[in-house]
C-alpha cells in the first residue's frame, strides 16, 4: 500500500485496570482528510496521543508505520520532527506572548540562544498569509478571538513543515463563520498534499469535508467508511458510533412518579468571564417527585453550567429566569439558600469541587449541614461520628474508619462520600453531574442503586451524564442539550441512542 501515509496496526493500550485501546487499526491515505468519530470515552484522543508520542513507545503494543517506515516515538518532539503535528482541543497558546513568539515557541529562529527577530517576523508573515489571518505578528494572542487563535495554532503547525495534521475538535469553540473558514483551509491543505486527521462530533462538517471516516467505540475500531465512493448518511455514522448493546446492568426500579416538585423556566446564563457570550439559552425543564430525569449531551453542551447556575448561582453572570419548587417561586442567590430550599448538587469533578481531600470522611460528610450536628454553633463531635458511621454503613463506604482522609479512598468510595454529604442535607432535589465518571463497574451499580433508592423515597433526581447507556438505563424522562439549549425531550420508554444522538447533533 504505497499511498498510505499512516498505518496504525493492532494498537493496544492499557491504563491500570482499564483496557483503553483494544487492537485498534487506523489507516490514513496520503493527501486525504480522515475523520475519527465516536462517543465521549471512545478513546479517540488516547489513540492520537499514542500516535504523537505523548504515550511513548513501549507503553502500548502494536505498530505505527509512517510514510512506509516503522516508527517508535518516545516523545512529541520525535513525531513533530517527521511532520506529525497535533492541535489539541484546549489550545496550547501562551496568551501574553505575541503571535510570532507563540508560533516559534520551542523552535525559536536564531543562533546561539539569540533570537533573530527579523527572520521570525518574516516567516510569521508568510505563515499568516497562508492560513489567511490578517493580524500583525506582534499582536498578543490574548487580544484575538478563539477562531483566530485556532488559525495561529495551525500556522504553528505549518512552521514545523507538517505532513500529517491532527485536529482534536477544532471547531468545538468556534462560531459558524470561523468553522467554515477553518474547513475551507483544511480543503486547501489537502490540495497541497497535506493529510489531516480530524476528530469531531459535528457530523455535518464531517460529511462535508472528510474522504474517509473511522468509527471508534469503547476503544476498538468498528469500521472505516469510504465517503468518496459511497454516499454515507449521518444516520449511518451514528449507528456505527452507538451500536453497542447494554452490557452494564442497571438495577430495576418501580417508578412512583408524583407531581412536579421543581421547575426551571426561561433560564438564561452568560459566560462567567465574557459577559457577551451566552452559554445557556432559554432553558425550561421540570422534575417530578420520585422521577429520575436525565440530561444528555456532549461535553461542552452547557449541562454543568446549567446545573451550577441553578445551584445558588455558582456559575455565570447576568442570570435570568425563574425557579419554582412545589409551585412556588424560590430565589437561590447563593449555595446556602439552595441547600436551605432542599436543592443539592453533586459536582462533576469530585476531587476539585466535591471533596476536601485532606480532611477525613466525617468532616466531608457533615460540611454542608454542620448546623444539624451543632448547638449554638458548637459542633458535637460524637454526634458527628455517629452521622458519619450511619452513612458509611448505608452507603457501604469501604474505609478503615470514618477518620480516614478522603484522599486515600478509591474513586467509587469518594463518590459515595460526596453523595453522603448531600443526602445529609436532606434535599428534595438532587442534581448529579456525571456521578459515575471514572468509577469501576461494580461501584457504578452501587451508585445506581443509591439513586434508585433516593427516587423511591420521593426525591426528584436530575442525572447529567455523557454516557448514553447510563441515561437510557436509569431515566424516566430525558432532556437533550446541545450548545446551551434543550433540543429535545424524550420519555424513557421511547428513547434510544439513535434518537438522542439525533437531537445532540441537531444544532
Amino acid at each position: 500500500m504505497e499511498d498510505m501515509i499512516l498505518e496504525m496496526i493492532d494498537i493496544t493500550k492499557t491504563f491500570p485496570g482499564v483496557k483503553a485501546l483494544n487492537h485498534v487499526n487506523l489507516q490514513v491515505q496520503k493527501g486525504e482528510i480522515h475523520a475519527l468519530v465516536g462517543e465521549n470515552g471512545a478513546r479517540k484522543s488516547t489513540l492520537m496521543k499514542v500516535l504523537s508520542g505523548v504515550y511513548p513507545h513501549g507503553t502500548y503494543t502494536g505498530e505505527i508505520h509512517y510514510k512506509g517506515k516503522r516508527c517508535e516515538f518516545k516523545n512529541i518532539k520525535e513525531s513533530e520532527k517527521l511532520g506529525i503535528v497535533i492541535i489539541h482541543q484546549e489550545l496550547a497558546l501562551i496568551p501574553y506572548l505575541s503571535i510570532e513568539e507563540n508560533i516559534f515557541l520551542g523552535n525559536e529562529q536564531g543562533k546561539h540562544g539569540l533570537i533573530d527577530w527579523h527572520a521570525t517576523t518574516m516567516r510569521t508573515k508568510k505563515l499568516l498569509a497562508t492560513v489567511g489571518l490578517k493580524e500583525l505578528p506582534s499582536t498578543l494572542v490574548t487580544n484575538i478571538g478563539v477562531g483566530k487563535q485556532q488559525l495561529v495554532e495551525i500556522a504553528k503547525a505549518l512552521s514545523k513543515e507538517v505532513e500529517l495534521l491532527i485536529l482534536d475538535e477544532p471547531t468545538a469553540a468556534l462560531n459558524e463563520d470561523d468553522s467554515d473558514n477553518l474547513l475551507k483551509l483544511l480543503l486547501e491543505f489537502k490540495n497541497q498534499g497535506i493529510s489531516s486527521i480530524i476528530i469531531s462530533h459535528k457530523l455535518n462538517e464531517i460529511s462535508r469535508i472528510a474522504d474517509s471516516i473511522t468509527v471508534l467505540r469503547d476503544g476498538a475500531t468498528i469500521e472505516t467508511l469510504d465517503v468518496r465512493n459511497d454516499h454515507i448518511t449521518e444516520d449511518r455514522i451514528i449507528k456505527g458510533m452507538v451500536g453497542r448493546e447494554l452490557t452494564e446492568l442497571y438495577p430495576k426500579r418501580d417508578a412512583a412518579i408524583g407531581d412536579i416538585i421543581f421547575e426551571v423556566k426561561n433560564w438564561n446564563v452568560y459566560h462567567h468571564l465574557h459577559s457577551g457570550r451566552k452559554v445557556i439559552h432559554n432553558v425550561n425543564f421540570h422534575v417530578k417527585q420520585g422521577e429520575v430525569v436525565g440530561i444528555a449531551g456532549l461535553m461542552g453542551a452547557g449541562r454543568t453550567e446549567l446545573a451550577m447556575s441553578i445551584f445558588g448561582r455558582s456559575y455565570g453572570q447576568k442570570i435570568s429566569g425563574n425557579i419554582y419548587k412545589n409551585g412556588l417561586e424560590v430565589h437561590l442567590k447563593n449555595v446556602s439558600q439552595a441547600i436551605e430550599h432542599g436543592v443539592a448538587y453533586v459536582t462533576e469533578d469530585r476531587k476539585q469541587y466535591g471533596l476536601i481531600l485532606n480532611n477525613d470522611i466525617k468532616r466531608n460528610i457533615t460540611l454542608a449541614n454542620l448546623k444539624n450536628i451543632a448547638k449554638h454553633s458548637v459542633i458535637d463531635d460524637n454526634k458527628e461520628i455517629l452521622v458519619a458511621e450511619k452513612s458509611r454503613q448505608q452507603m457501604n463506604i469501604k474505609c478503615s474508619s470514618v477518620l480516614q482522609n478522603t484522599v486515600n479512598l478509591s474513586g467509587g468510595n469518594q463518590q459515595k462520600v460526596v453523595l453522603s454529604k448531600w443526602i445529609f442535607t436532606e434535599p428534595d432535589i438532587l442534581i448529579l453531574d456525571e456521578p459515575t465518571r471514572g468509577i469501576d463497574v461494580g461501584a457504578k451499580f452501587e451508585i445506581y442503586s443509591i439513586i434508585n433508592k433516593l427516587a423511591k423515597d420521593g426525591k426528584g433526581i436530575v442525572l447529567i451524564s455523557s454516557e448514553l447507556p447510563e441515561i437510557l438505563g436509569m431515566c424516566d424522562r430525558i432532556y437533550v442539550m446541545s450548545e446551551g439549549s434543550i433540543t429535545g425531550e424524550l420519555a424513557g420508554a421511547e428513547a434510544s441512542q439513535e434518537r438522542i444522538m439525533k437531537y445532540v447533533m441537531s444544532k
Partner: protein
Amino acid sequence: METLKQMFKNNIREYGMVIALVSIVLFFEIVSKGVLLQPLNVTNLIQQNSYILILAIGMLLVIVAFQIDLSVGSTAAFVGAVSAILMIDHHIGVVPGILISLLIGGLAGAFQGYWVAYFKIPGFIVTLAGMLIFRGLTMTALEGQSKAPFPEVFQKMSNGFIPDILSGTSIHITTLVVGIILTLVYIFFELSHRKAKLEYNFEVIPVRFLAAKLVFVGVAINWFMYLLASYKGIPNVLILLFILIVFYTFITTKTVAGRHIYALGGNEKAAKLSGVKTERIVFWVFVNMGVLAALSGLVFAARLNAATPKAGTGFELDAIAACFIGGASTAGGIGVVMGAIIGGLVMGVMNNGMSLIGVTIDMQQTIKGLVLLLAVAFDIYTKSKQS
C-alpha cells in the same frame, strides 16, 4: 492496641513537635549547665516570647485559610504608637486606651481583609502593602521618636505577676494552688470526654494508658508551676496567653466557623459549593488577625515601656515560621493552635538557649533558618510517605 498505633500514626506530626520541643529544652538545659530552666529564665522566656505567640495564634488561622499576613509586625507597631499617643499624650485611661487600640487593629485587619476577600487580591500583595502602610504611619505618628513611659498598670500587663493572695514567703503559694486546680480541671475534662465516648460506644484508649497520660500531664503542669512559683509566680501575660490558647483551640476545633476555615483552606471551591461563605470567612480571619496583632503590639509596648518606630520589625516572619514549624501546611487547611504555640516555643527556646551558651546573634539567625527549613522538609517527607 491497633487503634493506639493508628492514633499515634495519625498524630505523628503533633507528637513529633512535642518530642522536638522537649529534646531542644533538654539539650540547652544540659549545655547551659542548668541555666535554661532556672525559674528566672523560664519567666523571662515566657515574657520575651508572649507577643510572638499571640501573633502565631492569629497567623495560624490565616495560614489554615491558605492566606498569609505580612503586615502584623507593622500593625503591632502602629497600634503600640497609637496607644502611646492615647495614654501618654492624651492621658486616656488604660482600659479605654486598650479597647480603642484593639478596635484600630481590627479596622486595619478589616481594611486588608476587604481587598483580599472581595477584590480577590492575593493576601501576600495586600499585606505587603499593609506592611509598608502601617510602618509609615507608625513613623509619622511617632515623628521618628520613642514615646515613654506608659502608666504603671499598663506595664503590669507584660511585666507583672499575679498577686500572692495566700502570702507565701519564699515561694508563691497561689501559683502552686493554681497548678493543682488546673490539674484537677484537666483530669475532669479527660474523664468526662471519655465518659461521653463510652456512652456512644466509641473506642477509647485503655485505662492504664489514660492513667499514664494523666500522671504525665499532671506532673508536667505542677512542675512548671513550681518553677514559676520559685521566682515571682505566674506572669500576667501567661494568663492572657492561656486564655487565648483555650479560646482559639475551642474556636478552631469545636465551632462551625472554625470548621469552615479548615474547609476553605483545604479546598476553596468545594467549600463554596458546600455552602461555606468563603469571602466572609476570609474577611473575618483578617479582622481577627488585626485584633491579635494589636494585642501583640500592646504587650510589646508594655514590656518595653515605650512605643518605638522600629517596634515589631520581623515579627511577621517569626509568627509565620512558628506556624510552619508547628505543622501548619503550606497548602492550607492543616494546622492546630497548639502546634503554632509549640513552634513558637521551639524558636523561643532556641533563641534563649543559644544566647545563654554564647552563640552570636548573627549565627542564631542562620540556625533558626535551618530549623524552619528542616521542620517543613520533615513535614513534606512524612506526608509523601503516608500517601
